[in-house]
């Protein structure tokens, strides 16, 4: 279960540290709202979300209760555009530990907040890795996994957003 390395310093007392990094297994359900997003992504390569019956706002990820109006969001699903504008972006220089993967990795793709063409914000990765070419305002388009069997991970079915040449 655990292996520890006594912290022997040249002088002074020895201090012990107990190391523990066993993975803890979990099973998470999407529920029916996020499940609808998964279904549309897998079957139709579409990005959808639900719209509030009262304020007509679209929230991503979908939610059963409107955060603004506090009413039941219902089942009014809307297809979202697959093109947008990069609003903010960042990229990792050093690898960081990802607890879901259980190791350090540096995502080679920059992570961006994209303003989809209907005014909804969406965070995803962008394909452009050349730092010189990255800028706020660039136009991007979703690129999906083409293989049907590889899809089924919800929004991870979108590989990244590719720059559209203006």
């Amino acid at each position, binding site marked *: 279960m655990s292996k520890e390395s006594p*912290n022997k310093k040249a002088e002074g*007392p020895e*201090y012990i*540290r107990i190391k*523990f990094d066993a993975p803890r297994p*979990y099973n*998470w*359900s*999407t529920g029916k709202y*996020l499940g609808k997003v998964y279904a549309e992504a897998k079957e139709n390569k579409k990005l959808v979300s639900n719209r509030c019956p009262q304020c007509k706002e679209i*929230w*991503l*990820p979908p*939610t059963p209760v409107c*955060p603004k109006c506090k009413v039941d969001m219902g089942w009014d699903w809307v297809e979202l555009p697959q093109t947008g504008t990069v*609003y*903010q*972006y*960042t*990229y*990792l*220089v*050093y690898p*960081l*530990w*990802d*607890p*879901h*993967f259980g190791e350090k*990795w540096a*995502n080679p793709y920059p*992570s961006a*907040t994209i*303003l989809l063409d209907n005014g909804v*914000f*969406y*965070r995803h990765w962008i394909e452009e890795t050349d*730092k010189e070419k990255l800028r*706020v305002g660039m136009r991007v388009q979703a690129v999906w996994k083409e293989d049907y069997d590889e899809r089924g991970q*919800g*929004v*991870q079915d979108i590989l990244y957003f590719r720059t559209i040449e203006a």
Partner: protein
Amino acid sequence: MPNRVAIVGIGQTYHTGSRDDVSQPEMVAEAVRAALADAQLSIKDIEGVFSGNMETFEGIYLPDHGMAAEVGAFGKPGFKVNTGGTTGASVVTEGFYMVSSGLYDLALVIGFEKQDCGDTTAAISAAAVPTWAKGAATGAIGEFAKQALAYLETSGAKEEHAAMVRLKADRNACRNPYAHLKLGLKNIDEVLQSPYLVWPLRLMDFCPQSCGACALVLASEKRAKNIHKKPVWIADVEVVHQEPFRAGVFGDPTGKETYTQHVACERLYKRNGITNPRKDIDMAEIYEPSNWEELNLYEHLHFCDKNEGWKLIEKGITEIEGEFPVNPSGGVIATNPIGATPIIRVAEAALQIRGDAGEHQIAKDIKTAMATALGGPNWTVLFLLKRSL
């Protein structure tokens, strides 16, 4: 009418990067003993013990159970609070509610984090909903990197301004014996040469991972005056949360976002008759995870107008000798044991009001101070502290 609540005991550990010589409970015990000594009380006098900690960082579930003896909670009521970055502030708010309700006369509130026991970014990334945002392992630093970019692009600020904030924080931290990072920076070039971590945040732009604990003893009005010569009154508390759906969690170039800080400040200032924060309040200890966010917060907390935050640092207004000192303790960017960090803001603001901050005491008389807390996704807690009500 709720009862008045005062801070009558303040204690913190000497915050540092790694502590091999104590276990997590023992580290917390140091802060508890310091707070009790400051209040000249014994643990027997305390009626309830409230602690705050973000468990995933240390990977110890229910740490308050394991340290019941070390915090003197054995046999006493109390519970642990975890609200992300605002954990410490939430626990002070809990203590405030308890004493203000009249059910408790003396409460001990503790915030702690022993971050050498885990990996902070990993723990924060574990907060991402795995069915939606898996693989977005940028932790908090990614969000603040995006905020920095947004501020850089829209406000007219330059990287030099962020570096000036870092220099201020380090100068102040070097005068604070409890602070963690004391780099001895001489000029902003040293900051501008540090490498990028998550673009455009540099290594020096972001707060460290510290080990430390901070404890406060809160007392009701009828007990406070008999305990400490200089009780510091918690005049008001405001807590505002926000859903994580919005894109610009910390930075918004469109100017259309409603930020929790705006909402919280509007309410707090209105209730307390504050119309010009820089004049009506004497100093502030704000929760700034990065130097860029400090510039942002100057604007969101209404210390200046939009897009003017960088002018405050350029003119030296927020320096310790300035007209409106901000973070004379060195702030979060010098010391960040996350569960304790907001309590340290309250503790440092209280020390300034008392005149007990030692080398980093502000020269002018501090009668009113503000302490803030910030947590993902942009939750805000504000405290207004006063020497007399």
